């Protein structure tokens, strides 16, 4: 489903990604963890080439994303992207936001698109907020609309970049619930997140990235229970030091 | 386009006239400096009036700023040219008239800049200062005004450059600044094209470095909200 080989990216002197290797099969739910600045956001944005990688190869659903002549808009339709800052279009309602992709990109008829938008919003629990503008929604609601918007394109792969990091603590739950249901429904998901409890429950694998490289990759039990690498252990202990388990 | 080069350019008269043009440029500078200084003072006074608690002070200040910012400077200059001698029987020389008109115009803009600058400082700042026991005036002086200055300085720089160019308008009432000298020269030599080309280049040579300086000012005082 997804193949990333030796993905590299530098910003000037700073080498953020030093050769990331990652493979996802259909239906996999993988959580990327790592300190801030480890390259998680950059990597996710390289996958749909919002950021141009300096080196490496990315193949998604058999399509060479990194090919010179790659049809980027076409490829991006198959990939759903949810960012930390929601990025809802402020001049459109919730339904408008969700409909925008299908209408403008897929050329769907407005009536049909609106129906599907209503369905998608109902799926994320926002049927009541269909004609509301983003600035009247809470952070959690906005993020859920963003997820519905990405789902409206029927993607084969969903990328999440720290989806709950910008939310107040009591609002993260509603977003994580939606994400869990998506995972249960069989969506292929790659999620960069700090939410360790979520990762432990939902992920098939956890990938730890540090200083631009994949340090460790393992199923949750193994990752949290008996991590192999020293750096992983140090990372976990720093993370867990505030948790009263 | 061919005709531009087919035209016989004749800059012969220019070098001799340079001293005169440069004198005009110097007058431009003098006008700008004097006007700016006066405008900062008047602008500050009117701003205080504008933000005052008393309607009797606020209203005239508001009327003044709106009037002088919404009518053309050229109209204001000519208006004063006619009004002063006739109505108030004041016979001052054109230079003073020019400075008066320019100052009244620029001060209106300066007032607004000061006002916006002060009001743009986060209300919380003033609250924080007052809750440590400072008086209103001290809070203004130590906390609000220093922050307002950062926002105000670049805008005043822009006003300065606008003013520098606007001095060209007082040529119409006979002040011997650069534009006036240019027009005289064009008339005398029958070479308006060459004359105004040189005049424009002179303005450019004076203004562009100031713009670069203004950009530097913008960078230095940039407010990160």
């Amino acid at each position, binding site marked *: 489903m997804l193949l990333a080989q030796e993905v590299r990216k530098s910003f000037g002197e700073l080498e953020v990604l030093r050769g990331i290797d990652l493979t996802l099969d259909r239906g996999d739910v993988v959580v990327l963890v790592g300190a801030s600045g480890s390259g998680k956001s950059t990597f996710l944005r390289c996958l749909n080439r919002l950021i141009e990688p300096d080196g490496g190869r990315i193949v998604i659903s058999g399509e060479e994303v990194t090919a010179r002549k790659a049809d980027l808009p076409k490829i991006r339709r198959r990939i759903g992207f949810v960012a930390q800052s929601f990025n809802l*279009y402020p001049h459109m309602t919730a339904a408008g936001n969700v409909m925008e992709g299908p209408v403008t990109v897929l050329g769907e008829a407005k009536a049909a698109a609106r129906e599907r938008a209503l369905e998608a919003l109902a799926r994320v629990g926002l049927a009541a907020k269909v004609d509301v503008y983003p600035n009247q929604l809470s952070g959690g609601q906005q993020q859920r609309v963003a997820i519905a918007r990405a789902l409206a394109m029927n993607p084969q792969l969903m990328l999440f970049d720290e989806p709950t990091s910008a939310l107040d603590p009591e609002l993260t739950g509603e977003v994580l619930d939606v994400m869990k249901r998506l995972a249960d429904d069989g969506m292929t998901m790659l999620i960069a997140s700090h939410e360790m409890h979520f990762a432990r429950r939902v992920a098939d694998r956890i990938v730890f990235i540090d200083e631009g490289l994949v340090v460790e990759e393992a199923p949750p039990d193994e990752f949290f229970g008996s991590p192999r690498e020293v750096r992983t252990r140090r990372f976990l202990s720093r993370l867990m030091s505030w948790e009263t388990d | 386009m061919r005709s531009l080069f087919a035209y016989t350019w004749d800059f012969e008269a220019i070098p001799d006239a340079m001293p005169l043009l440069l004198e005009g440029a110097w007058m431009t500078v003098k006008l700008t400096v004097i006007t700016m200084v006066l405008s900062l003072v008047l602008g500050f006074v009117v701003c205080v009036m504008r933000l005052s608690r008393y309607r009797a002070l606020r209203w005239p200040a508001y009327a003044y700023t709106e*009037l002088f910012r*919404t*009518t053309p400077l*050229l109209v204001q200059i000519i208006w004063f040219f006619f009004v002063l001698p006739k109505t108030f029987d004041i016979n001052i020389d054109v230079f003073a008239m020019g400075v008066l008109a320019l100052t009244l115009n620029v001060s209106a803009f300066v007032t607004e800049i000061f006002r916006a600058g002060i009001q743009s400082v986060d209300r919380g700042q003033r609250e924080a200062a007052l809750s440590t026991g400072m008086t209103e005036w001290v809070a203004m002086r130590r906390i609000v005004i220093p922050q307002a200055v950062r926002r105000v300085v670049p805008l005043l720089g822009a006003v300065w450059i606008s003013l520098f160019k606007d001095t060209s308008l007082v040529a119409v009432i006979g002040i011997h600044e650069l534009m006036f000298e240019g027009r005289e020269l064009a008339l005398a030599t029958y070479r308006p094209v060459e004359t105004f080309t040189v005049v424009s280049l002179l303005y450019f040579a004076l203004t562009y470095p100031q*713009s670069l300086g203004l950009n530097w000012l913008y960078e230095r005082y940039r407010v990160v909200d």
Partner: protein
Amino acid sequence: MGALSFSDYFRLLIDGLEITIVVSVFGLIGAVVIGLTVATLRMSRFRLVRFLGGLYIDFFRSTPLFAQLLWLFYVLPILTGFSFSAQVAGTIGLALYEAAFFAEIFRAGILAVPRGQREAALSTGMTRVQTSRRIVLPQAIRTMLPPGTSATVTLIKDSSLVSFVGVTDLLYQANSLAAVTLDPIGVLTVAALLYFALCYPITVAANWMQRRLTLKTA
């Protein structure tokens, strides 16, 4: 000229006002079109194009409009071989000058749209053009409206300069009348008030827009 009644000279001023409005409208259209072009140049991927755009702005903002109008008035016929009416030359000069200011306003408006908006649009598979048209521009225009309206008021005020290249606009009429009537102050005051009546409503609209804009993004 014989004795002019108030209604006579008022009518002449109104004639001048009409010309002022015509010059301002066409000047504005020209300034917006040229300004948009220059702004696009300034945001190009190519360094040379960006530089050329910047050159235009620096050039036209570094000399007084007065000098530009006089220069253009004499040079345009030579440059193109046609003779231009003062009004056309004046309008062109006004447009070229104000375009430099509009260009900056347009550029700032587009840059003010958060990068995340472009990202979101592109990641749904929109092309660059679609992203600009559906997502970036609508938001940019909102930001551009208040400063754009102020620039329009400035343009109307600056249009008064064309009176000195012989265009019979409001100031021209006021000047001519002031020279011959017994009441130059009255004439000039009415002229000033007419300019005020033209510009003030637009200023009010600009302020109202500015306030509405800052409230909405809160």
